[in-house]
Protein backbone atom coordinates (compact mmCIF):
# COMPACT_ATOMS: atom_id res chain seq x y z
CA UNK A 1 0.00 0.00 0.00
CA UNK A 2 1.51 3.33 -0.95
CA UNK A 3 1.86 6.21 1.50
CA UNK A 4 -0.63 8.45 -0.29
CA UNK A 5 -3.43 5.94 -0.03
CA UNK A 6 -2.55 5.30 3.58
CA UNK A 7 -2.80 8.96 4.52
CA UNK A 8 -6.00 9.27 2.51
CA UNK A 9 -7.51 6.38 4.47
CA UNK A 10 -6.29 7.85 7.76
CA UNK A 11 -8.16 11.04 6.96
CA UNK A 12 -11.29 8.95 6.63
CA UNK A 13 -10.73 7.37 10.00
CA UNK A 14 -9.32 4.07 8.73
CA UNK A 15 -5.88 3.07 9.96
CA UNK A 16 -4.06 0.71 7.67
CA UNK A 17 -0.78 -0.63 8.95
CA UNK A 18 1.53 -3.60 8.80
CA UNK A 19 2.32 -5.92 11.66
CA UNK A 20 5.90 -4.69 11.63
CA UNK A 21 4.86 -1.06 12.03
CA UNK A 22 2.44 -1.90 14.80
CA UNK A 23 5.01 -4.02 16.62
CA UNK A 24 7.71 -1.37 16.38
CA UNK A 25 5.28 1.40 17.35
CA UNK A 26 4.28 -0.47 20.47
CA UNK A 27 7.85 -1.13 21.52
CA UNK A 28 9.22 2.32 20.83
CA UNK A 29 6.41 4.14 22.61
CA UNK A 30 6.84 2.45 25.97
CA UNK A 31 10.51 2.14 26.73
CA UNK A 32 11.02 1.33 30.38
CA UNK A 33 14.47 2.39 31.51
CA UNK A 34 16.36 0.72 34.33
CA UNK A 35 16.61 2.89 37.44
CA UNK A 36 20.36 2.77 37.55
CA UNK A 37 22.75 5.68 37.98
CA UNK A 38 26.49 5.45 38.23
CA UNK A 39 27.88 8.95 38.67
CA UNK A 40 27.43 12.58 37.68
CA UNK A 41 25.33 11.84 34.58
CA UNK A 42 22.72 10.15 36.77
CA UNK A 43 21.82 13.54 38.24
CA UNK A 44 21.13 14.86 34.75
CA UNK A 45 19.17 11.69 34.03
CA UNK A 46 17.00 12.41 37.08
CA UNK A 47 16.69 16.04 35.97
CA UNK A 48 15.44 14.81 32.58
CA UNK A 49 12.59 12.95 34.28
CA UNK A 50 11.62 15.96 36.40
CA UNK A 51 9.03 18.61 35.66
CA UNK A 52 11.03 20.89 33.41
CA UNK A 53 12.26 18.35 30.86
CA UNK A 54 9.60 15.70 31.47
CA UNK A 55 10.80 12.57 29.77
CA UNK A 56 7.30 11.13 30.22
CA UNK A 57 6.23 12.99 27.07
CA UNK A 58 8.12 10.33 25.09
CA UNK A 59 6.70 7.32 26.88
CA UNK A 60 9.70 6.61 29.05
CA UNK A 61 8.83 7.81 32.52
CA UNK A 62 8.54 4.41 34.21
CA UNK A 63 11.98 3.87 35.70
CA UNK A 64 12.08 0.34 37.02
CA UNK A 65 14.43 -0.63 39.85
CA UNK A 66 14.51 -4.26 38.73
CA UNK A 67 16.27 -5.28 35.52
CA UNK A 68 13.61 -7.94 34.94
CA UNK A 69 11.05 -5.24 34.25
CA UNK A 70 13.21 -2.92 32.18
CA UNK A 71 14.10 -2.91 28.50
CA UNK A 72 16.46 0.04 28.32
CA UNK A 73 19.68 0.54 30.24
CA UNK A 74 21.07 4.05 30.49
CA UNK A 75 24.72 3.68 31.47
CA UNK A 76 24.95 7.08 33.15
CA UNK A 77 28.42 7.70 34.46
CA UNK A 78 31.90 6.32 34.93
CA UNK A 79 32.10 2.54 34.85
CA UNK A 80 34.93 1.44 37.09
CA UNK A 81 36.53 -1.95 36.87
CA UNK A 82 34.90 -2.90 40.16
CA UNK A 83 31.48 -1.97 38.79
CA UNK A 84 31.82 -3.38 35.25
CA UNK A 85 30.86 -7.00 36.14
CA UNK A 86 27.69 -5.75 37.85
CA UNK A 87 26.74 -3.64 34.82
CA UNK A 88 27.11 -6.60 32.48
CA UNK A 89 25.23 -8.85 34.90
CA UNK A 90 22.37 -6.37 35.07
CA UNK A 91 22.28 -6.23 31.28
CA UNK A 92 22.16 -10.01 31.09
CA UNK A 93 19.24 -10.06 33.52
CA UNK A 94 17.13 -7.78 31.34
CA UNK A 95 14.67 -9.55 29.04
CA UNK A 96 14.90 -9.21 25.28
CA UNK A 97 14.42 -6.91 23.38
CA UNK A 98 16.81 -4.63 25.27
CA UNK A 99 18.68 -1.49 24.38
CA UNK A 100 21.58 0.49 25.81
CA UNK A 101 22.21 4.23 25.84
CA UNK A 102 25.78 5.12 26.74
CA UNK A 103 25.44 8.50 28.43
CA UNK A 104 28.41 10.80 28.83
CA UNK A 105 32.08 10.79 28.02
CA UNK A 106 32.96 8.31 30.78
CA UNK A 107 30.56 5.60 29.62
CA UNK A 108 31.72 6.06 26.03
CA UNK A 109 35.48 6.00 26.52
CA UNK A 110 36.47 6.66 30.12
CA UNK A 111 36.26 10.40 29.54
CA UNK A 112 38.37 12.64 31.76
CA UNK A 113 39.26 9.66 33.94
CA UNK A 114 40.56 7.56 31.06
CA UNK A 115 44.14 7.44 32.37
CA UNK A 116 42.93 6.16 35.74
CA UNK A 117 43.98 2.64 36.68
CA UNK A 118 40.50 1.66 37.82
CA UNK A 119 38.36 3.10 35.03
CA UNK A 120 36.88 1.04 32.21
CA UNK A 121 37.56 2.65 28.87
CA UNK A 122 34.03 2.43 27.52
CA UNK A 123 31.14 0.12 28.38
CA UNK A 124 30.90 -0.92 24.70
CA UNK A 125 33.81 -3.29 25.36
CA UNK A 126 31.39 -5.67 27.05
CA UNK A 127 27.85 -4.92 25.89
CA UNK A 128 26.45 -3.65 22.59
CA UNK A 129 25.50 0.04 22.73
CA UNK A 130 22.71 1.52 20.59
CA UNK A 131 23.07 5.26 21.17
CA UNK A 132 26.05 7.27 22.42
CA UNK A 133 25.56 10.75 23.94
CA UNK A 134 28.73 12.81 24.30
CA UNK A 135 29.06 15.44 26.99
CA UNK A 136 30.34 15.78 30.52
CA UNK A 137 27.60 15.56 31.60
CA UNK A 138 25.19 15.71 28.63
CA UNK A 139 22.29 18.08 29.10
CA UNK A 140 18.82 16.60 29.69
CA UNK A 141 17.92 17.70 26.17
CA UNK A 142 20.71 15.49 24.87
CA UNK A 143 19.22 12.52 26.71
CA UNK A 144 15.82 13.28 25.18
CA UNK A 145 17.50 13.44 21.77
CA UNK A 146 19.04 10.04 22.43
CA UNK A 147 15.58 8.69 23.23
CA UNK A 148 14.23 10.01 19.95
CA UNK A 149 17.16 8.48 18.08
CA UNK A 150 16.57 5.14 19.75
CA UNK A 151 12.86 5.31 18.88
CA UNK A 152 13.78 5.99 15.27
CA UNK A 153 16.14 3.03 15.33
CA UNK A 154 13.43 0.75 16.70
CA UNK A 155 10.98 2.04 14.07
CA UNK A 156 13.30 0.93 11.29
CA UNK A 157 13.79 -2.65 12.47
CA UNK A 158 12.61 -5.58 10.36
CA UNK A 159 10.62 -8.45 11.77
CA UNK A 160 11.96 -10.98 9.29
CA UNK A 161 14.87 -11.38 6.93
CA UNK A 162 18.62 -11.35 7.46
CA UNK A 163 18.62 -7.81 8.93
CA UNK A 164 16.23 -8.62 11.74
CA UNK A 165 17.35 -7.57 15.20
CA UNK A 166 19.11 -9.77 17.68
CA UNK A 167 16.12 -10.72 19.77
CA UNK A 168 14.33 -12.22 16.75
CA UNK A 169 17.32 -14.31 15.76
CA UNK A 170 17.69 -17.53 17.74
CA UNK A 171 21.36 -17.86 16.80
CA UNK A 172 22.39 -14.52 18.26
CA UNK A 173 23.36 -14.31 21.94
CA UNK A 174 21.25 -12.40 24.43
CA UNK A 175 23.70 -12.80 27.28
CA UNK A 176 27.27 -11.60 27.27
CA UNK A 177 30.41 -12.64 29.09
CA UNK A 178 30.60 -11.23 32.61
CA UNK A 179 34.19 -10.14 33.26
CA UNK A 180 35.98 -11.35 36.36
CA UNK A 181 38.72 -9.80 38.45
CA UNK A 182 42.10 -11.04 37.25
CA UNK A 183 45.52 -10.36 38.73
CA UNK A 184 46.02 -7.07 36.88
CA UNK A 185 42.86 -6.31 34.96
CA UNK A 186 39.43 -7.64 34.20
CA UNK A 187 39.41 -11.03 32.48
CA UNK A 188 38.63 -10.86 29.58
CA UNK A 189 39.65 -7.25 28.96
CA UNK A 190 37.02 -6.96 26.25
CA UNK A 191 34.39 -9.06 24.55
CA UNK A 192 35.68 -9.49 21.02
CA UNK A 193 32.19 -10.40 19.74
CA UNK A 194 31.00 -6.94 20.70
CA UNK A 195 34.00 -4.68 20.46
CA UNK A 196 36.79 -4.43 17.93
CA UNK A 197 39.82 -2.27 18.58
CA UNK A 198 39.64 0.73 16.21
CA UNK A 199 42.14 0.55 13.39
CA UNK A 200 44.42 3.55 13.41
CA UNK A 201 46.42 4.24 10.27
CA UNK A 202 49.65 5.83 11.32
CA UNK A 203 52.13 6.84 8.68
CA UNK A 204 55.63 7.50 9.93
CA UNK A 205 56.82 11.01 9.21
CA UNK A 206 59.45 11.16 6.46
CA UNK A 207 58.55 7.80 4.91
CA UNK A 208 55.78 9.24 2.83
CA UNK A 209 57.02 10.24 -0.65
CA UNK A 210 54.69 13.24 -0.86
CA UNK A 211 56.31 14.76 2.18
CA UNK A 212 53.05 14.81 4.09
CA UNK A 213 51.88 12.49 6.83
Amino acid at each position, binding site marked *: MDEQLKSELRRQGVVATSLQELYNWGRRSSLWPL*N*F*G*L*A*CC*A*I*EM*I*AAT*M*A*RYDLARFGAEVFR*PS*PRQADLMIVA*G*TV*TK*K*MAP*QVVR*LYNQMPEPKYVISMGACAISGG*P*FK*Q*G*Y*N*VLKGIDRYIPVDVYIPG*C*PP*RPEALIDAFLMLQKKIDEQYLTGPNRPRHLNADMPSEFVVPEFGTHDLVPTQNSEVWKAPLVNISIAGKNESGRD
Partner: protein
Amino acid sequence: MSVLTDTPIDLTPDLPNDRSEGQLLEVSMGPQHPSTHGVFRMDVTLDGEKVVKLKPVFGYLHRNHEKIAENESYLGCMPYTDRLDYICSITNNWAYALAVETLAGIQVPERAEYLRVITGELTRLQNHAGLVGFLMQDMGASGTPLMYAFREREKVLDLFEALTGARMMCNYMRFGGCRVDVPSGWLQAAQKVIDGFPKFLDEFESLLMSNEILMARTQGVGVVTREQAINAGISGPMARASGVNYDLRKVDKYGIYDRFSFRVPLGEHGDVYDRYMLRVLEMRESIEILKQAMRDLPAGPIMDPNTKIRGFRPKAGEAYGRIEGPKGELGFYLISDGSPNPYRFRVRPPSLINLTLLEDMCLGQNVADIVIILGSVDIVLGEVDR
Protein backbone atom coordinates in the same frame (compact mmCIF):
# COMPACT_ATOMS: atom_id res chain seq x y z
CA MET B 1 30.48 -1.26 67.00
CA SER B 2 30.83 1.99 68.82
CA VAL B 3 33.36 4.73 68.29
CA LEU B 4 33.58 5.26 72.03
CA THR B 5 35.04 1.85 72.86
CA ASP B 6 38.65 1.58 73.93
CA THR B 7 39.03 -1.99 72.75
CA PRO B 8 39.99 -2.55 69.11
CA ILE B 9 36.98 -2.12 66.88
CA ASP B 10 35.84 -5.29 65.18
CA LEU B 11 34.23 -4.09 61.99
CA THR B 12 32.70 -7.41 61.05
CA PRO B 13 31.92 -9.46 64.12
CA ASP B 14 30.96 -13.04 63.39
CA LEU B 15 27.42 -13.63 64.46
CA PRO B 16 26.08 -17.05 65.33
CA ASN B 17 23.87 -18.21 62.52
CA ASP B 18 22.39 -21.29 64.22
CA ARG B 19 20.33 -19.64 66.94
CA SER B 20 17.30 -21.45 68.24
CA GLU B 21 14.88 -18.52 67.94
CA GLY B 22 15.39 -18.07 64.21
CA GLN B 23 17.87 -17.53 61.47
CA LEU B 24 19.68 -14.36 60.57
CA LEU B 25 19.20 -13.11 57.04
CA GLU B 26 21.98 -11.50 55.10
CA VAL B 27 20.85 -8.96 52.51
CA SER B 28 23.06 -7.18 50.04
CA MET B 29 21.70 -3.69 49.34
CA GLY B 30 23.29 -2.22 46.26
CA PRO B 31 25.34 -1.37 44.28
CA GLN B 32 22.31 -1.17 41.99
CA HIS B 33 19.63 0.01 44.38
CA PRO B 34 17.39 3.03 43.83
CA SER B 35 17.96 4.47 47.27
CA THR B 36 21.71 4.16 47.75
CA HIS B 37 22.37 7.53 46.08
CA GLY B 38 24.80 6.00 43.64
CA VAL B 39 26.83 2.84 43.59
CA PHE B 40 27.12 2.10 47.28
CA ARG B 41 26.66 -1.33 48.78
CA MET B 42 25.65 -2.39 52.25
CA ASP B 43 25.85 -5.94 53.51
CA VAL B 44 23.05 -5.95 56.04
CA THR B 45 22.40 -8.78 58.47
CA LEU B 46 18.81 -8.85 59.64
CA ASP B 47 17.06 -10.48 62.55
CA GLY B 48 13.51 -10.32 61.27
CA GLU B 49 13.16 -6.60 60.54
CA LYS B 50 15.94 -5.48 62.89
CA VAL B 51 19.43 -4.69 61.68
CA VAL B 52 22.06 -6.55 63.70
CA LYS B 53 25.07 -5.89 61.49
CA LEU B 54 25.83 -3.54 58.63
CA LYS B 55 28.97 -3.59 56.57
CA PRO B 56 29.42 -0.82 54.00
CA VAL B 57 31.28 -1.71 50.80
CA PHE B 58 32.91 1.19 48.97
CA GLY B 59 34.94 1.65 45.83
CA TYR B 60 32.44 1.16 43.04
CA LEU B 61 33.13 4.70 41.83
CA HIS B 62 36.83 4.94 42.64
CA ARG B 63 38.00 7.14 39.78
CA ASN B 64 41.64 7.61 40.86
CA HIS B 65 41.12 11.31 41.47
CA GLU B 66 44.17 11.77 43.68
CA LYS B 67 46.51 9.80 41.46
CA ILE B 68 45.41 11.59 38.29
CA ALA B 69 45.92 14.94 40.02
CA GLU B 70 49.57 14.11 40.70
CA ASN B 71 50.19 14.07 36.96
CA GLU B 72 48.15 17.19 36.18
CA SER B 73 49.14 20.82 36.43
CA TYR B 74 47.66 22.84 39.27
CA LEU B 75 45.22 24.44 36.85
CA GLY B 76 44.42 21.06 35.26
CA CYS B 77 43.26 19.72 38.63
CA MET B 78 40.50 22.32 38.85
CA PRO B 79 38.01 20.60 36.47
CA TYR B 80 38.58 17.30 38.28
CA THR B 81 37.45 18.86 41.55
CA ASP B 82 34.09 19.58 39.87
CA ARG B 83 33.53 15.87 39.57
CA LEU B 84 34.30 15.04 43.21
CA ASP B 85 30.98 16.05 44.67
CA TYR B 86 29.15 16.52 41.43
CA ILE B 87 26.11 18.22 42.91
CA CYS B 88 28.04 21.17 44.32
CA SER B 89 30.99 21.76 42.03
CA ILE B 90 31.57 25.41 42.94
CA THR B 91 32.33 24.77 46.59
CA ASN B 92 34.81 22.07 45.54
CA ASN B 93 36.54 24.61 43.30
CA TRP B 94 36.63 27.02 46.19
CA ALA B 95 38.25 24.61 48.64
CA TYR B 96 40.92 23.68 46.10
CA ALA B 97 41.55 27.31 45.15
CA LEU B 98 41.89 28.14 48.84
CA ALA B 99 44.47 25.38 49.31
CA VAL B 100 46.55 26.60 46.37
CA GLU B 101 46.24 30.21 47.52
CA THR B 102 47.50 29.20 50.98
CA LEU B 103 50.35 27.28 49.35
CA ALA B 104 51.49 30.15 47.15
CA GLY B 105 50.38 33.10 49.27
CA ILE B 106 47.97 34.62 46.76
CA GLN B 107 45.61 37.46 47.65
CA VAL B 108 42.09 37.42 46.19
CA PRO B 109 40.46 40.70 45.09
CA GLU B 110 37.41 41.93 46.96
CA ARG B 111 34.89 41.44 44.13
CA ALA B 112 36.06 37.88 43.54
CA GLU B 113 35.54 37.09 47.24
CA TYR B 114 31.98 38.35 47.02
CA LEU B 115 31.33 36.36 43.85
CA ARG B 116 32.68 33.27 45.61
CA VAL B 117 30.31 33.77 48.51
CA ILE B 118 27.34 34.33 46.17
CA THR B 119 28.01 31.27 44.02
CA GLY B 120 28.98 29.17 47.04
CA GLU B 121 25.77 29.95 48.91
CA LEU B 122 23.70 29.34 45.76
CA THR B 123 25.39 25.94 45.61
CA ARG B 124 24.38 25.28 49.20
CA LEU B 125 20.79 26.19 48.36
CA GLN B 126 20.54 23.79 45.44
CA ASN B 127 22.33 21.00 47.30
CA HIS B 128 20.07 21.20 50.34
CA ALA B 129 16.94 21.54 48.18
CA GLY B 130 17.94 18.43 46.24
CA LEU B 131 18.80 16.53 49.41
CA VAL B 132 15.45 17.24 51.06
CA GLY B 133 13.69 16.10 47.89
CA PHE B 134 15.70 12.87 47.72
CA LEU B 135 15.09 12.21 51.41
CA MET B 136 11.34 12.44 50.83
CA GLN B 137 11.68 10.15 47.83
CA ASP B 138 13.49 7.61 50.01
CA MET B 139 10.70 7.87 52.55
CA GLY B 140 8.15 6.88 49.95
CA ALA B 141 6.77 10.28 48.96
CA SER B 142 7.36 9.26 45.40
CA GLY B 143 7.90 12.09 42.98
CA THR B 144 6.12 15.18 44.25
CA PRO B 145 8.58 16.66 46.80
CA LEU B 146 11.46 15.82 44.48
CA MET B 147 9.69 17.61 41.63
CA TYR B 148 9.30 20.71 43.80
CA ALA B 149 12.94 20.54 44.86
CA PHE B 150 14.22 20.10 41.33
CA ARG B 151 12.06 22.98 40.14
CA GLU B 152 14.03 25.26 42.48
CA ARG B 153 17.30 23.56 41.68
CA GLU B 154 16.83 24.21 37.97
CA LYS B 155 16.47 27.93 38.64
CA VAL B 156 19.84 27.98 40.38
CA LEU B 157 21.39 25.85 37.62
CA ASP B 158 20.16 28.40 35.07
CA LEU B 159 22.13 31.06 36.92
CA PHE B 160 25.22 28.84 36.93
CA GLU B 161 24.85 28.20 33.24
CA ALA B 162 24.58 31.90 32.44
CA LEU B 163 27.63 32.62 34.56
CA THR B 164 29.98 29.72 33.85
CA GLY B 165 28.64 27.99 30.75
CA ALA B 166 27.81 24.69 32.43
CA ARG B 167 24.92 23.48 34.52
CA MET B 168 26.77 21.11 36.78
CA MET B 169 30.50 21.16 36.09
CA CYS B 170 31.06 24.87 36.60
CA ASN B 171 34.87 25.05 36.87
CA TYR B 172 34.41 28.62 38.04
CA MET B 173 37.18 29.44 40.50
CA ARG B 174 40.80 30.11 39.73
CA PHE B 175 43.57 30.59 42.28
CA GLY B 176 43.64 34.35 42.67
CA GLY B 177 39.99 34.97 41.86
CA CYS B 178 37.24 33.79 39.57
CA ARG B 179 37.24 32.86 35.90
CA VAL B 180 34.65 35.28 34.49
CA ASP B 181 32.75 38.29 35.73
CA VAL B 182 28.96 38.25 35.88
CA PRO B 183 27.22 38.93 32.54
CA SER B 184 24.81 41.83 32.27
CA GLY B 185 21.45 41.14 33.85
CA TRP B 186 22.77 38.23 35.89
CA LEU B 187 22.57 39.99 39.24
CA GLN B 188 18.95 40.96 38.65
CA ALA B 189 18.13 37.35 37.68
CA ALA B 190 19.94 36.07 40.76
CA GLN B 191 18.09 38.55 42.97
CA LYS B 192 14.82 37.26 41.59
CA VAL B 193 15.74 33.64 42.37
CA ILE B 194 16.89 34.55 45.88
CA ASP B 195 13.75 36.57 46.58
CA GLY B 196 11.55 33.73 45.37
CA PHE B 197 13.31 31.03 47.36
CA PRO B 198 11.70 31.65 50.79
CA LYS B 199 8.32 31.05 49.16
CA PHE B 200 9.44 27.56 48.18
CA LEU B 201 10.69 26.94 51.72
CA ASP B 202 7.38 28.12 53.21
CA GLU B 203 5.53 25.83 50.83
CA PHE B 204 7.80 22.94 51.69
CA GLU B 205 7.50 23.51 55.41
CA SER B 206 3.74 23.86 55.39
CA LEU B 207 3.46 20.65 53.40
CA LEU B 208 5.95 18.56 55.30
CA MET B 209 7.24 19.94 58.58
CA SER B 210 4.38 18.74 60.77
CA ASN B 211 3.37 15.88 58.51
CA GLU B 212 2.44 12.96 60.72
CA ILE B 213 4.01 10.28 58.55
CA LEU B 214 7.22 12.22 58.23
CA MET B 215 7.47 12.69 61.98
CA ALA B 216 6.68 9.04 62.69
CA ARG B 217 9.30 7.87 60.23
CA THR B 218 12.11 10.25 61.19
CA GLN B 219 11.87 11.24 64.87
CA GLY B 220 14.14 9.17 67.07
CA VAL B 221 15.53 7.28 64.09
CA GLY B 222 19.27 7.11 63.42
CA VAL B 223 20.35 9.07 66.48
CA VAL B 224 23.91 10.37 66.69
CA THR B 225 24.85 11.75 70.10
CA ARG B 226 27.05 14.81 70.51
CA GLU B 227 29.96 12.71 71.81
CA GLN B 228 29.71 10.24 68.94
CA ALA B 229 29.70 13.07 66.43
CA ILE B 230 32.81 14.66 67.90
CA ASN B 231 34.67 11.37 68.31
CA ALA B 232 33.97 10.25 64.75
CA GLY B 233 35.08 13.61 63.35
CA ILE B 234 31.90 14.23 61.44
CA SER B 235 31.21 17.76 60.33
CA GLY B 236 28.72 19.93 58.54
CA PRO B 237 24.94 19.78 58.96
CA MET B 238 25.16 16.28 60.40
CA ALA B 239 27.35 17.38 63.32
CA ARG B 240 25.26 20.49 63.88
CA ALA B 241 22.09 18.40 63.99
CA SER B 242 23.66 16.59 66.98
CA GLY B 243 24.27 19.90 68.75
CA VAL B 244 27.94 20.43 67.86
CA ASN B 245 28.38 24.15 67.21
CA TYR B 246 30.99 23.83 64.50
CA ASP B 247 30.62 25.83 61.31
CA LEU B 248 33.83 26.71 59.49
CA ARG B 249 32.24 29.90 58.23
CA LYS B 250 32.25 31.04 61.87
CA VAL B 251 35.34 29.15 63.07
CA ASP B 252 37.81 29.91 60.27
CA LYS B 253 36.05 32.96 58.84
CA TYR B 254 37.69 32.10 55.52
CA GLY B 255 37.20 34.54 52.68
CA ILE B 256 34.98 37.37 53.87
CA TYR B 257 32.50 35.46 56.00
CA ASP B 258 33.24 37.68 59.02
CA ARG B 259 31.40 40.52 57.24
CA PHE B 260 28.02 38.80 57.16
CA SER B 261 25.63 38.35 60.02
CA PHE B 262 23.97 34.95 60.02
CA ARG B 263 23.00 32.35 62.56
CA VAL B 264 24.12 28.73 62.82
CA PRO B 265 21.14 26.43 63.43
CA LEU B 266 21.76 23.61 65.89
CA GLY B 267 19.82 20.41 66.48
CA GLU B 268 19.03 18.81 69.82
CA HIS B 269 18.29 15.17 69.17
CA GLY B 270 20.60 14.23 66.31
CA ASP B 271 17.94 12.14 64.59
CA VAL B 272 16.86 12.13 60.95
CA TYR B 273 14.19 14.76 61.59
CA ASP B 274 16.75 17.16 63.07
CA ARG B 275 19.03 16.66 60.09
CA TYR B 276 16.15 17.37 57.73
CA MET B 277 15.02 20.49 59.61
CA LEU B 278 18.58 21.75 59.93
CA ARG B 279 18.93 21.79 56.16
CA VAL B 280 15.73 23.77 55.77
CA LEU B 281 16.90 26.31 58.37
CA GLU B 282 20.35 26.51 56.79
CA MET B 283 18.77 27.40 53.47
CA ARG B 284 17.07 30.35 55.17
CA GLU B 285 20.41 31.53 56.60
CA SER B 286 22.04 31.13 53.19
CA ILE B 287 19.40 33.43 51.75
CA GLU B 288 20.30 36.01 54.41
CA ILE B 289 23.98 35.79 53.46
CA LEU B 290 23.10 36.05 49.77
CA LYS B 291 21.00 39.17 50.33
CA GLN B 292 23.85 40.87 52.19
CA ALA B 293 26.44 39.82 49.60
CA MET B 294 24.32 40.99 46.68
CA ARG B 295 23.79 44.32 48.41
CA ASP B 296 27.49 44.91 49.15
CA LEU B 297 29.03 43.55 45.93
CA PRO B 298 31.80 46.04 45.05
CA ALA B 299 33.20 46.88 41.62
CA GLY B 300 36.77 46.00 40.73
CA PRO B 301 38.93 43.26 39.24
CA ILE B 302 38.04 39.60 39.69
CA MET B 303 41.57 38.21 39.31
CA ASP B 304 44.75 38.93 41.19
CA PRO B 305 46.95 40.50 38.44
CA ASN B 306 50.18 39.04 39.84
CA THR B 307 49.11 35.42 39.66
CA LYS B 308 50.39 33.45 36.71
CA ILE B 309 47.85 30.70 36.17
CA ARG B 310 49.56 28.95 33.27
CA GLY B 311 52.96 27.53 34.09
CA PHE B 312 52.14 27.90 37.77
CA ARG B 313 54.95 26.62 39.98
CA PRO B 314 54.52 27.22 43.71
CA LYS B 315 57.50 26.97 46.04
CA ALA B 316 58.10 23.67 47.81
CA GLY B 317 55.89 23.29 50.85
CA GLU B 318 52.54 22.06 51.98
CA ALA B 319 49.15 23.61 52.63
CA TYR B 320 45.68 22.64 53.77
CA GLY B 321 42.67 24.59 52.62
CA ARG B 322 39.24 23.88 54.03
CA ILE B 323 35.80 25.34 53.67
CA GLU B 324 32.34 24.62 55.00
CA GLY B 325 30.91 22.76 52.04
CA PRO B 326 27.21 21.94 51.90
CA LYS B 327 28.03 18.45 53.17
CA GLY B 328 30.64 19.35 55.78
CA GLU B 329 34.27 20.23 56.09
CA LEU B 330 35.79 19.84 52.65
CA GLY B 331 39.57 20.08 52.69
CA PHE B 332 42.38 19.78 50.18
CA TYR B 333 45.87 18.97 51.38
CA LEU B 334 48.59 19.75 48.87
CA ILE B 335 52.33 19.05 48.95
CA SER B 336 54.43 20.90 46.41
CA ASP B 337 57.99 20.02 45.45
CA GLY B 338 58.39 23.06 43.22
CA SER B 339 57.30 21.26 40.06
CA PRO B 340 54.25 22.28 37.96
CA ASN B 341 52.12 19.47 39.38
CA PRO B 342 51.31 18.63 43.00
CA TYR B 343 53.50 16.01 44.65
CA ARG B 344 50.58 14.86 46.77
CA PHE B 345 46.95 15.80 46.40
CA ARG B 346 44.75 14.64 49.22
CA VAL B 347 41.04 15.27 49.58
CA ARG B 348 39.28 15.28 52.94
CA PRO B 349 35.82 14.23 51.83
CA PRO B 350 33.00 15.14 54.22
CA SER B 351 30.68 12.48 52.76
CA LEU B 352 33.01 9.59 53.56
CA ILE B 353 33.79 10.72 57.09
CA ASN B 354 30.12 11.44 57.86
CA LEU B 355 29.37 7.92 56.66
CA THR B 356 31.62 6.26 59.26
CA LEU B 357 28.79 6.31 61.81
CA LEU B 358 26.40 4.49 59.49
CA GLU B 359 26.48 1.20 61.37
CA ASP B 360 26.02 2.91 64.76
CA MET B 361 22.98 4.74 63.43
CA CYS B 362 21.41 1.68 61.83
CA LEU B 363 21.87 -0.99 64.52
CA GLY B 364 18.55 -1.95 66.05
CA GLN B 365 16.53 -0.04 63.46
CA ASN B 366 14.17 -1.51 60.90
CA VAL B 367 15.48 -2.32 57.47
CA ALA B 368 13.33 0.41 55.90
CA ASP B 369 14.99 2.97 58.15
CA ILE B 370 18.44 2.26 56.68
CA VAL B 371 17.31 3.98 53.52
CA ILE B 372 16.27 7.23 55.18
CA ILE B 373 19.28 7.21 57.53
CA LEU B 374 21.56 6.94 54.52
CA GLY B 375 19.55 9.65 52.78
CA SER B 376 19.89 12.01 55.73
CA VAL B 377 23.69 11.65 55.81
CA ASP B 378 23.81 13.30 52.38
CA ILE B 379 26.45 11.36 50.52
CA VAL B 380 27.68 11.68 46.97
CA LEU B 381 29.59 8.66 45.80
CA GLY B 382 31.97 10.66 43.64
CA GLU B 383 33.32 12.11 46.84
CA VAL B 384 33.11 9.00 49.00
CA ASP B 385 35.12 6.82 46.61
CA ARG B 386 37.02 9.58 44.79
